């Protein structure tokens, strides 16, 4: 539960600080564009700041943010203004070449595969949790994960044999 001494305002600012990058990385993974990710993040935190929902814990707030991020990025896809103008490889710079290559390879996957890969490998969510978030069946998530891994294996080569 939110601590009684921790007012809603202080709680929201702390959660914003704590999960800002989490939301941004998921938004970037889903949209594949920094500017669109910025738009999604802004929308997510506007909703977060203005919601009257009472969060039971930090994890509860995190789950809410992830869910809203997924919904908001759907709106970006639905918008007629949505178009990818700058390749992600030109927008992002990585200090580690190997990890950068992995990230950019994942970004080339179809959007639905990118999402399950991100939630499964970065957010450490279970198949069931991902299915709940995406309002889909667990078997669908398992299938998408399997196909995504197969595509990644073929794109990354034999160097990455452990998934």
């Amino acid at each position, binding site marked *: 539960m939110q601590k009684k001494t921790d007012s809603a305002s202080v709680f929201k600012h702390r959660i914003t600080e704590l999960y800002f990058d989490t939301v941004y990385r998921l938004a970037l993974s889903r949209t594949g564009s920094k500017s669109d990710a910025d738009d999604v993040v*802004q929308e997510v935190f506007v909703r977060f700041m203005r919601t009257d929902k009472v969060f039971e814990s930090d994890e509860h707030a995190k789950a809410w943010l992830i869910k809203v991020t997924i919904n908001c990025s759907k709106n970006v896809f639905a918008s007629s203004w949505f178009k990818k103008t700058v390749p992600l490889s030109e927008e*992002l710079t990585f200090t580690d070449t190997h990890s950068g290559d992995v990230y950019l390879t994942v970004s080339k996957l179809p959007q639905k595969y990118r999402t399950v890969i991100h939630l499964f490998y*970065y957010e450490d969510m279970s198949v069931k949790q991902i299915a709940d978030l995406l309002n889909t069946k667990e078997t669908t998530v398992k299938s998408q994960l399997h196909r995504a891994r197969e595509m990644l294996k073929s794109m990354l080569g034999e160097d990455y044999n452990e998934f």
Partner: protein
Amino acid sequence: MNFKDEYRAANEQIHGDRTILAGITEKPKKIIYFKPAVGIGIAAAVCAITLLAYPYINLPFGNEDSPIKTDGVFLASEQEKGMPLPENGEEMQSYNLEMRKAAPASVAEPAFDNCKAFGTCLLFENYVSVYDESGNETKYAITPETVFVNQNDEEISRETAEKGVIECIETENMVAVKIIIK
């Protein structure tokens, strides 16, 4: 190499631009200038002050404790005597206003000896209006030297006089005012 470790490491290098949060504010709270209880208290205070001040407020109607009540006394008594009364509310108002005008400074001070009963008149704050049988008004100033007396010629206070029935008396050569407490 392990895909998960590399993917996680890549994500850890990605940071969003937090300046986009600059314009985000929380839902504005309703501004309550004062609590409902305060409003009720203010209304109650206004009512209490109005009730306390009621006897001292000169209203053209409805205030039974106001000195203006003398208007009603006059009208009732004069009506019984067959005097013409204003026919509508507007005339009545101007009539009453006219009656409330201050008395001329030069009017004679009333005397109380050798008088005979004349009729009912009106006692105002600083003068007395006397009406003859034709309805003509004569005003007599009430000065600090004016004495109010009862029917036994005993001196009474102004406050006591206001509670009684006011009568006017006159001699052969002058008109006088006498306050009769019955």
